């Protein structure tokens, strides 16, 4: 039984109850053999044979060539025919057939990854040949994600042979719950000193670069390395678990792959070839900042998803003149000095509500101001130096093209530095530039901006601010709930002070914008209007939810639901509640325990 306490993408922190034992996940299994002792901090063992152990034990029963009997254990790895995936499809199928016939070897039997049909009821899925596959990034990525899918949310995935400290963050990121210390024990024997950045040769140490109990002790040689390498593993495991709870695992993974080409290759493959599956797991709102500190950050699922969705974006209908504005380190943009100055200057321009301010930024491309609270626009943080590399340039240009291809403006005003202006010029030759002497906030620049805007707006249709507020709400609704969701703002008026804006129809309140989530929270009135779109819906059994909706009550969930999404809870076409998803739609489908929707309004 699995109690999940924290999630980040495919990674989770959980308590795994198996028989009398309760394990924390992610966890590392420590081998214990006649010659190789388990380290002092081991909590779960990996062993063979019948001898009872003082700790929960996963038992390896050998292979078909030398099957071994197994003593008590929380999971048994049945004797397998160990054909590696590289041996060819027919061989792997033959092995799977053989291995499936071994699957039913008693309660607690684990399964070598085979047909998903065999996974029912198994507590653990083994990603077979995990370590042999690992150097082949493509092969490993597909196998790991397939294992996660086969396992479902309730089942634990184990990757045998992997689990060196520097690998742990990446393994969790791939949805792997269990690794082992076999690699660490072999490294100890070979005289390697393990760290979260990879192995070191301790021969040249002037001082031990670690403060674990083993490194502070007098221990030398093999006993020292065995114990230190285990502490290094334990320490990184704790880092990983905490990073998952804080939803900062991606940052840790990016840090760990820096000096690890195999890991870097895998991350690139995951980002470029498995984007959709990761994006479906990425939360749509978050608390802390999202540090985009490396090249790989540009393809982080949330960031890539924002760029991919831009062609779907539609501007507020009444906005007519496009103002391309600089980004700011401070988020949301409107709280920054830059945008305070711009806002003040524009407020002195007549019909300023016909202006559409859009921020140009790397690496998410463009951020229309009405979406500034949305994740990742509200959270991303990256070094700003004014230098744009080719990739960043291309990304921004592509985003801008997507914006202009699907939205028509009467004029384009560019209030940006020379560098940024130059890259815009390639996309929109026909624009007006309003920054003087490369200082966007100088009185001269701001005056030029005002003058240019006055001119640009003289032919624009007059727009009342209430009208514009409603159009902004429509644009937000579409971005959050997809095409057609503009209906939410039809026949409404907006009340409240930004960002706490409330959307009212004749029947009452429909939605509210919240700064913490960056999303629209729906009322039942609003939800009813969106129901015909058929998206973000959780179909439940026939009951009337009050507090939260638990996994067993869910019949179906739209696959487009990401964690933190606003969802409509329905039964047979009847709206039963509105709330916030705590897990993705994919996970809702296989989860058997725990709350999956926090209900806010019930019908």
């Amino acid at each position, binding site marked *: 039984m699995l109690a999940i306490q924290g999630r980040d993408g495919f990674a989770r922190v959980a308590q795994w109850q198996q028989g009398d034992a309760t394990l924390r996940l992610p966890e590392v299994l420590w081998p214990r053999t006649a010659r190789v002792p388990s380290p002092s901090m081991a909590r779960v063992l990996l062993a063979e044979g019948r001898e009872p152990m003082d700790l929960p034990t996963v038992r390896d029963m050998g292979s078909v060539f030398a099957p071994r009997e197994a003593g008590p254990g929380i999971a048994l790895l049945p004797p397998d025919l160990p054909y590696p995936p590289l*041996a060819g499809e*027919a*061989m792997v199928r033959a092995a799977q057939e*053989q291995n499936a016939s071994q699957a039913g070897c008693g309660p607690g039997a684990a399964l070598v990854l085979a047909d998903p049909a065999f996974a029912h009821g198994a507590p653990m899925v083994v990603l077979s040949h995990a*370590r042999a596959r690992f150097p082949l990034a493509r092969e490993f990525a597909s196998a790991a994600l397939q294992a996660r899918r086969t396992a479902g949310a309730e089942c634990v995935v184990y990757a045998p042979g992997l689990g060196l400290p520097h690998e742990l963050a990446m393994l969790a990121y791939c949805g792997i719950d269990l690794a082992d210390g076999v690699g660490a024990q*072999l490294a100890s024997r070979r005289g390697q000193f393990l760290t979260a950045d990879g192995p070191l040769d301790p021969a040249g140490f002037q001082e031990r670069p670690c403060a674990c109990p083993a490194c502070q002790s007098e221990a030398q040689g093999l006993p020292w390395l065995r114990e230190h390498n285990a502490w290094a593993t334990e320490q990184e495991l704790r880092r990983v678990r905490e990073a998952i709870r804080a939803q900062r695992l991606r940052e840790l993974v990016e840090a760990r792959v820096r000096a690890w080409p195999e890991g870097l290759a895998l991350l690139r493959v995951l980002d470029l070839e498995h984007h959709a599956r990761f994006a479906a797991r990425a939360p749509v709102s978050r608390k802390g900042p999202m540090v985009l500190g490396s090249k790989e950050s540009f393809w982080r699922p949330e960031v890539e998803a924002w760029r991919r969705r831009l062609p779907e974006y539609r501007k507020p209908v009444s906005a007519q003149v496009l103002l391309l504005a600089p980004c700011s380190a401070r988020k949301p943009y409107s709280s920054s000095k830059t945008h305070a100055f711009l806002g003040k200057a524009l407020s002195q321009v007549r019909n300023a509500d016909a202006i559409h301010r859009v921020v140009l930024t790397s690496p998410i491309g463009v951020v229309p101001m009405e979406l500034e609270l949305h994740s990742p626009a509200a959270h991303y943080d990256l070094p700003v130096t004014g230098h744009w590399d080719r990739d960043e340039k291309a990304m921004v240009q592509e985003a801008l093209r997507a914006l202009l291809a699907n939205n028509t403006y009467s004029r384009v005003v560019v209030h940006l530095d020379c560098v940024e202006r130059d890259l815009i010029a390639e996309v929109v030759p026909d624009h007006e530039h309003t920054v003087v002497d490369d200082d966007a906030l100088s009185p001269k620049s701001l005056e030029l901006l005002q003058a240019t805007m006055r001119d640009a707006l003289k032919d624009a249709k007059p727009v009342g601010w209430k009208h514009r507020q409603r159009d902004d709400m429509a644009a937000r609704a579409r971005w959050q709930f997809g095409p057609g969701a503009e209906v939410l703002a039809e026949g409404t008026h907006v009340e409240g002070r930004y960002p706490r804006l409330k959307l009212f129809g004749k029947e009452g309140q429909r939605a509210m914008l919240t700064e913490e989530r960056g999303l629209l929270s729906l009322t039942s009135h609003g939800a009813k209007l969106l129901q015909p779109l058929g998206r973000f819906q959780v179909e439940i059994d026939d009951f009337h939810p009050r507090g939260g909706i638990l996994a067993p009550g869910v019949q179906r969930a739209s696959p487009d639901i990401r964690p933190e999404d606003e969802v409509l809870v329905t039964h047979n076409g009847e709206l039963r509640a509105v709330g916030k998803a705590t897990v993705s739609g994919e996970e809702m489908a296989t989860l058997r325990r725990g709350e999956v929707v926090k209900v806010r309004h019930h019908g």
Partner: protein
Amino acid sequence: MADVEQVLQPLQQLMRDTRRLAPREGSLDEPTKVWTEQERFQDQVADALVIILKTRGCTWALQGGCTFCGYVNDSMVRKVSVENFLAQMRLALGQSWKGQPVVKIYTSGSFLDDTEVPREAQAGVLALLPEGVRKATIEAQTHHATRDKLAAVRGALRPEVELEVAFGVESAHAPVLAWSVNKDDRFPDFIAACGHARGLGIKTKAYIMLKPPFLTEREALDDAVATALLCAPHCNLLSINPCNVQNRTLVERMFRRGLYRSPWLWSVAEALTRISAGTHTPVRSNPVGAGQQRGAHNCGTCDGHVADAIEQFSLSRDPSLLPGAQCACREEWLDILELEGFLQGAQP
């Protein structure tokens, strides 16, 4: 569940794909290779002439064959006539026989396979051995070694010449034969063949494979020792063959992908130690390519030393010559024996 008594078709197909055999050019009247080596004969070290005859190839290998066997690369893949066999034999003896008491006649396949070596040639080749030869060795698959055929080859030799037939047993265990080695013989075939041979006064030798693919170092070591002890009551000599990486084999494909490591020389020494402690039947080993990545090897430092000790043991049969713990890599090997099974096919 796949049947261990049947050939596993995907494995057989994979072997066919790996080999891609085609008919070869070249004279059929010249042997593949001829050389002289040393071996133990009648408690002394004696010279032995080795003749590798050209044949169409091992019938089993032409259908796919054993996962480690690269000898099939010598196959002509076309008919070799009785006259061709006799011509090869005459040429080899004429050029290279200088009175060596032992002559080994190998075919890279099975000498007693009528499809590979016509019956007339089986007898004819042996009948050409000159006076002075005191022992002849041939190799055959066990299921070809029927009483009739053994009697025929025995009858082709002068009575004073000792005949030895070597069988590639590889393993006594059906799962290893079916799913690792991909062999069409089974252990009962070996027991039967040895029974026939004994009745005819023919000596027998068992080749035992150490570390065919997909087995861990420990599984391989245990399997070789168990196989040797099962063979011992039936045959006259045990030969431990550490698997080496030969061209165009499954083992080579895995080796290239980092999925196969030839056995440690420590495993060879350990196997010899355990076997000689468990049986009086003599045991020997001549690791091919010892010390190289493609042959049995250790850490690179102690390889020459350990390989020499194995060589000395094979000639002298004195277990005290087998190496002890002279190198730190022995500790690593001992750890690997216990840990490798957890790695699920990855090399430690």
